[in-house]
């Protein structure tokens, strides 16, 4: 099963995934035209901030199977295609914006916006469709293509996890053997995040200065 695996320690909060996602789901598929479209295209991936400054997590549909949203939808607007059965999709024409899918979604990644696919409705449920149109053309999802720090990786889930396991193994063995090996997070990025952690600590309620 192909999926998008997230490495939160790599996310630096640039939100380029969000912009690329909105463009991929726009009518024009062009950043420069997309900004003039009505309704404005919306991202289906959401890089929200963590508790500490300089941390963030790109959150999107995990395409559960069975999918709670699909089971809860009273109008059967949530479905799967035969060619990509692992992808949970929304038929916006059938959506009545009742919000049930969002209620049961474990990841809070379903949002409600106007859509050109259902022009007569003010709002419909919008969520990641794993860029099924791009996949049909042999492309990877737009968010993954936009992510240059490797916070989003696309592929067979088990292969992605194996790659992670191998990296982890190297790190463990390097620790055991005091071998020179690149750290998971480079020192300069750790220093930058460390600054954010200190600032968050200073600003904590009641601790200092008031």
């Amino acid at each position, binding site marked *: 099963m192909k999926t998008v695996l997230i490495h939160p320690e790599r996310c*630096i*909060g640039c939100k380029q995934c969000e912009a690329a996602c909105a463009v991929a789901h726009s009518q024009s598929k062009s950043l420069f035209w997309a900004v003039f479209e009505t309704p404005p295209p919306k991202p289906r991936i959401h890089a*929200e901030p963590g508790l500490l400054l300089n941390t963030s997590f790109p959150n999107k549909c995990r395409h559960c199977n069975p999918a709670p949203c699909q089971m809860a939808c009273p109008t059967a607007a949530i479905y799967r295609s035969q060619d990509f059965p692992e992808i949970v999709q929304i038929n916006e024409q059938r959506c009545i914006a009742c919000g049930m899918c969002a209620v049961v979604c474990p990841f809070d990644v379903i949002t409600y916006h106007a859509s050109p696919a259902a022009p007569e409705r003010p709002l419909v449920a919008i969520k990641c469709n794993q860029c099924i149109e791009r996949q049909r053309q042999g492309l990877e999802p737009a968010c993954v293509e936009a992510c240059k720090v*490797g916070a989003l990786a696309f592929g067979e889930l088990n292969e992605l996890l194996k790659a992670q396991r191998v990296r982890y193994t190297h790190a463990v063995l390097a620790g055991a053997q005091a071998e020179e090996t690149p750290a998971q997070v480079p020192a*300069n990025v750790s220093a930058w995040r460390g*600054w954010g952690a200190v600032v968050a600590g200073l600003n904590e309620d009641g601790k*200092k*200065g008031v």
Partner: protein
Amino acid sequence: MTVISGNGFKKRSINVDTQAMLEIAHKQGIPTVWERLEAQQPQCGYCNLGTSCRICAMGPCRVDPFGDGPQKGVCGADADIIVARNLARMVAAGAASHSDHGRDILETLHHVGEGHTDAYTISDPAKLRRLAAEYHIATEGKSDQQVAKELAWEMMEDYGMRRQQLPLSLRAPQARQELWKKLGVMPRGVDWENVETLHRTHMGVDNDWVNILLHSARNALSDGWGGSMLATELSDVLFGVPTPKMSQVNLGVLKASHVNIILHGHNPMLSEVIVAASQDPELLALAKAKGAQGINLAGLCCTGNEVLMRKGIPMAGNHLMQELAIMTGAVELMVVDYQCIMPAVTETARCFHTKVVSTFDKARFPGAEHISFDPGRGLEIGKQIVRLAVENFSKRVPERVIIPVQPAPMMTGFSIEAILQALGGTPQPLIDAIVKGNIRGAVGIVGCNNPKIKQDLGHTELTKRLIENDILVVVTGCATVADGKAGLMTPQAAEKAGPGLRAVCQALGIPPVLHLGSCVDNTRILVLAAALANTLGVDISALPLAGAAPEWYSEKAVAIGVYVVASGIYTVLGVAPPVFGSPNVVKLLTEGLEGVFGATFAVEADPDRAAALIRRHIEKKRAGLGLEALDPGSIPLPEAQLALA
């Protein structure tokens, strides 16, 4: 980061007046800088790390700081080049801002020399003549006006390309000048260095990141020993050399019974005429007729610092107070010149009766009334603006007026001339106190507010740790308001200092924290450092001095930081500059520069830790001068307090 009300506001600021106004903003649904910061989270990591490049249209490009993604931009620039180019452009923007401010003051001096203004005159002829001597202008038998004319003409050349060295840089110790020459960073022309930075950082010009940063140092020096210094010196000539005086600070300086005018921005030209216009009998009578008891002026940001230093005009607040001051509902008019005036100000003003008046053609604010400033008829314009304020008093809604605190007293006006006078005419008593160890050293705490740091926490905590340990603190800019509100800037605050510094302050009747002025007035720190170094016959880098910018936000602060370090003064930044994407640049700034300028940067947000770093540095420098000194390693570096530890 989610903060809603009550105790939440204590996460944003240490100040009672800020917290009270945030409560009001929340109740009335008026967004502030803190909500906008929250809405921006997470902020782009490439931009934060300095590894995004928007310089050309082959880009925009970014370098993956984790090493797996792209490591070079389309042109081939790596993280080092991209970070260096971005930093250099920040320095250029900062230097340009100070220097263009200096240019406006210089132009005013020129107008005075030509006799083209009714509003300005030479307030300090002695300083005018001292400066003229530095520019080799014969002054004997010439009128002040003639000297002003010749000096202005000569100083205009500082912005040109005929010089090989800016004349004011001759004030630096000989050893420092030799070093600058050897490194090829001697500042030549104010505009020249700025333009050259823009040229060098165009794609395909200076591709050596070290060479870019060296020029950036020269660019910053052209600000510190050029544009900024010129702004300070000429403001003293035109508006008077500041002398010590008491004033007041915080939102309590606004008066419910008066017409309140806030002077916001950086350039003192206009605010000086407003001060004059606000005393106009006709306008005062009009204010009375409208039911006000008088006309009250209050400063904000560095325009506030300028009129506080020279005229003792009370200070309403620093950078993060600009929206909150309007929310008192007691401000009839906010007159703005330029720099650090948030575009949000006019939007906030629309929720109240407050008028915003912009005055410089180069700084327009949609939603503000624009009254183009013309030094030729300055007083007339000043009166026009004050009249607008007085007439607006009738539109005030008394029920919405909330002035949450009583003003705090503070002492101001410590120009170098005033400090020397307090010391009896020479820096020798200060040097003696440092030699004896009563004063361990001196630190300039400067720079802005930044909503990422709890407002004024960085300034005040660092100041307290330093004075407790007998380190004299001088402040400029937003740090002034922070320390003033915290009660650290009265002669009585000497009690909060260590025994050595306390005794010196009590003997002289001065606070342990001296107000040197606005952000261009950081050049007063350079002048004082140079005077101390010259008296001792050493370079500035040998002195037990340091700088700190605990809550900086602006490009101008970057320029200041670079000229301070390039002048030989160790500087601790509380906010991480966008350079962490290049380990090489970080290493150069925090270690390598020691072997270049004899001073480095450090980044430390925790004020207790910053104080320890500074104390260690000062003791190291004391030992270097052969003075009694502590072992730097014996000063403990406290653990950082982490939110999720």
